[in-house]
């Protein structure tokens, strides 16, 4: 629990909207750039992984932001 | 289009017609060498004597025309194509073949000095717009049967003649195949200039760097061919292409080899330095004045501060205004007729610079920076490279505006990374520095003595790697040795 509270306190300091945008940017890049590129190379699995990384990054970053700003 | 119909061989002869495109043919050839023999020398007796029509036709083909190049064509399309290319089509009634007579001749610009790559020592001839003239210019320089010239037509509508030049026993076949493959892949309706080709065959489309070397100089092309590169000549343009191109090759001028090696090396070092200055000088000004004045020597820092006293704009605005103005002047200078262009350049530069300083829009140090940058960018021999670095200069200026010196270095690193990823027909763009080829460094930042460059560039993986006998003694040494005896 100490570690968890440490992490939360750290996040309050440094998890800001800029970081969220950064992660969302990476996620979008994964979904739209990498996934398509992989697909055109014929690597379906990689394309899928890329897409999922992107989606989960976006979701998690927004979720964490809500968590940090409004809940804890 | 001219149709000239008459009856060949008198009353017993056949109806015949000459078709050609006005302006594309040499009228004297038609009058003297085609029409005169066909009309006056092919007499009725010839028709009588001929036992058959076939024989008559052969007689016409073999003996009647005093023109060097004659072809028989059966297809309509082909003959139309050749007609458009300046051949004369000769039709005889009753025969299913057309005779194509070479009588090409059109008004063209003579061989003049290249405008974009002027040098002091070296040949003054430059390519002109006619492909055949251009190939002849190369041929005159390399009298080797291994110099192959292949001609293909590209462009659905323009059907432009493209000549592929290479040394069959030097050029690496993989590169050659690559070039041919890429040329054959092109599907477009028009090739109006070699710039079209360049964009179709280069490796990376959106890179600011040219990956194909364009040149107006036949000696440059000949030297390239002898290094194992492939030359591409396009009809209707004086600009030949040389592939593969590396940054190093684009920074060289053919004059480097004509001068003694120390001078050649010195000018080359200056050129690289000038290119670097042209790239970073304005951004360094921004970074040093507004981020890190501690790096400027104290007295200079104080005088820069004094010169900027009263200038309302931040340093980056100053830099963008002045650089923008210079680019404007440059572009305008190119478009204006040449006598006026120079005047406008000088007058504009002087007046704008002077007025801007006295109006307190920019500091005087900025004017010096801009002038130095502009001058430096003219020292780059290849226009395409100079323009690429001009563009990147603005990128670096943006980086410097935000992150100072750190931004500049970061910008340079990203440019370098980009160049590291670039390849021109399989040859690394940064060769020979990277991949590191120590033997090729003789012809990079410096130009070593011609006797020391016994091998062709190794990154070209040429079939015949040696320029001269590798084990041969230096002539100088040899002469001294003889003198001692």
């Amino acid at each position, binding site marked *: 629990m100490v570690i968890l509270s440490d992490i939360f306190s750290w996040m309050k300091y440094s998890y800001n909207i800029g970081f969220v945008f950064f992660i969302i940017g990476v996620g979008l890049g994964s979904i739209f750039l990498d996934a398509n590129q992989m697909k055109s190379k014929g690597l379906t699995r990689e394309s899928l992984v890329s897409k999922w990384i992107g989606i989960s990054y976006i979701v998690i970053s927004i979720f964490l932001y809500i968590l940090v700003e409004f809940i804890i | 289009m001219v149709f000239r119909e008459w009856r060949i061989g008198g009353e017993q002869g056949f109806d015949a017609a000459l078709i050609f495109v006005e302006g594309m043919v040499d009228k004297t050839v038609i009058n003297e060498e085609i029409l005169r023999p066909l009309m006056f020398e092919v007499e009725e007796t010839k028709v009588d004597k001929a036992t058959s029509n076939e024989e008559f036709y052969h007689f016409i083909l073999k003996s009647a025309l005093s023109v060097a190049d004659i072809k028989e064509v059966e297809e309509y399309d082909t003959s139309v194509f050749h007609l458009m290319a300046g051949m004369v089509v000769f039709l005889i009634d009753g025969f299913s073949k057309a005779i194509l007579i070479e009588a090409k001749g059109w008004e063209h610009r003579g061989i003049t000095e290249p405008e974009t790559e002027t040098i002091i020592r070296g040949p003054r001839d430059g390519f002109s717009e006619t492909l055949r003239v251009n190939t002849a210019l190369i041929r005159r320089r390399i009298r080797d049967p291994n110099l192959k010239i292949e001609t293909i037509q590209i462009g659905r509508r323009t059907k432009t003649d493209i000549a592929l030049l290479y040394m069959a026993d030097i050029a690496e076949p993989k590169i050659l195949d690559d070039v041919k493959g890429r040329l054959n892949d092109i599907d477009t309706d028009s090739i109006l200039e070699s710039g079209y080709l360049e964009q179709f065959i280069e490796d990376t489309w959106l890179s600011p760097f040219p990956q194909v070397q364009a040149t107006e100089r036949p000696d440059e092309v000949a030297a390239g061919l002898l290094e194992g590169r492939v030359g591409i000549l396009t009809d209707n343009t004086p600009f030949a292409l040389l592939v593969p191109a590396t940054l190093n090759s684009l920074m060289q001028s053919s004059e480097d080899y004509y001068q003694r090696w120390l001078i050649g090396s010195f000018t080359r070092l200056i050129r690289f330095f000038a290119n670097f200055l042209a790239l970073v000088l304005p951004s360094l000004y921004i970074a040093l004045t507004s981020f890190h004045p501690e790096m400027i*020597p104290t007295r200079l820092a104080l005088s820069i501060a004094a010169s900027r006293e009263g200038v309302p704009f931040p340093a980056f605005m100053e830099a963008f205004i002045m650089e923008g103005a210079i680019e404007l002047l440059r572009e305008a200078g190119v478009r204006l007729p040449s006598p006026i262009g120079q005047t406008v350049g000088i007058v504009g530069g002087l007046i704008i610079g002077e007025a801007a300083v006295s109006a307190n829009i920019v500091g005087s140090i900025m004017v010096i920076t801009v002038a130095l940058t502009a001058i430096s960018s003219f020292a780059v021999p290849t226009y395409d490279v100079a323009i690429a670095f001009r563009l990147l200069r603005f990128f670096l200026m943006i980086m410097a505006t935000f992150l100072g010196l750190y931004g500049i*270095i*970061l910008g340079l690193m990203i440019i370098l990374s980009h160049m590291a990823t670039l390849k021109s027909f399989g*040859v690394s763009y940064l060769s020979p520095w990277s991949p590191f080829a120590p033997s090729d460094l003789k012809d990079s930042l410096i130009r070593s003595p011609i006797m020391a460059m016994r091998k062709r560039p190794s990154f070209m993986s040429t079939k015949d790697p040696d320029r001269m006998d590798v084990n041969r003694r230096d002539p100088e040494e040899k002469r001294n040795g003889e003198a001692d005896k």
Partner: protein
Amino acid sequence: MRALLRDNDRITPFELAVLMVIVTLEMGVTTFPRTMTEKVGTESWLIPLPGFLFSLLAVYFLVRLSKLFPGKTFVEYSQEILGSIIGKLFVIIVIAFWVSTSARILRQFADVMKVNLLFRTPIEVIIFSMLLFAAYPARYGIEPMARLAIIVAFVTIPVGLFLFAFVIPQAKFDNLLPVFAQGPLLLLKAGFLSVGSLEGIELLLVLLPFITQPRKSLKASTWALAVLWSIIFIVNGVVLAVFGEKEVMYLLRPGLTIIQTIELPTLFVERLSSVYVATWVALIFPSISMFLFLASTSLAKLFGLKEQKILIYPLTPVIFALAILPSNVLEVENIANFLEQIGVFIIGIMPLFLFLIAKIRKKGGSY
């Protein structure tokens, strides 16, 4: 005839050596004089001797391992040697080490930038811009990075050493004394531990199968180590000789501060330390992209992905988060010390260990 370098995943032994040097010369090198002096006092300038021997040993076992499993990276062979689960654990530890090391380097770098060039720019911006740009060449695979590293090495290392040459007149060689006052054991121990901060050796875990002439890789990496340790030797020795033991231990980054003491009549550039710091930007850049490449390649191999490209940008937020995690320089130093110990484990102990187990369990090729 030399092969055309058109395939995107091969590097020459020379390029491997250059990469090893470039990756190791990161921000940590500037603190070497301090950390080493803290360990062994004035003898710290001698550490390169045992350090070179120990790192050579590590390199030797890594090369032997790679010969046992030709064409395989450590991701595959450690799983073969240690079994799937322990092997995977080891791989994950190494990947985590790379990710956190690059975060550590970035953070140290950003701190240096903030102190020397950009006083008020948030470190987030410095780290972010560096990370974003350094990821670009990593996406194109190992070859462009080797290209980049060569140019960077040929530009920055001479500049750095040139600047160092100006410091030498101030050196007082009494500061290097006494030597061998505390017995060789301490020196040997320090030499062994210093192997942990040579990140370049870890490249061999992944890069050995990418070498065009595998036979030359041992020779090339030995050369890299020799160059590396001589650079460290020069830096350490000069710094210690100029500052003396106490001042070295007092300074945060003696390797940087020393440039500020250069006393030259004003050149074109007033403060050479800024130029020096600027060259560090160029040195850090390939290191970061290399670690990104290593981590993503290993991850891709671990999960059986055919393309490492897609993992590079997704790794950046993780590194970014880790880089801005420590609140101040002291914490960064603690983390750096901790990572150095992990590094000792990864390249000081594991190669030998893996090699022995492979021999005992008769895994790998018939070497």
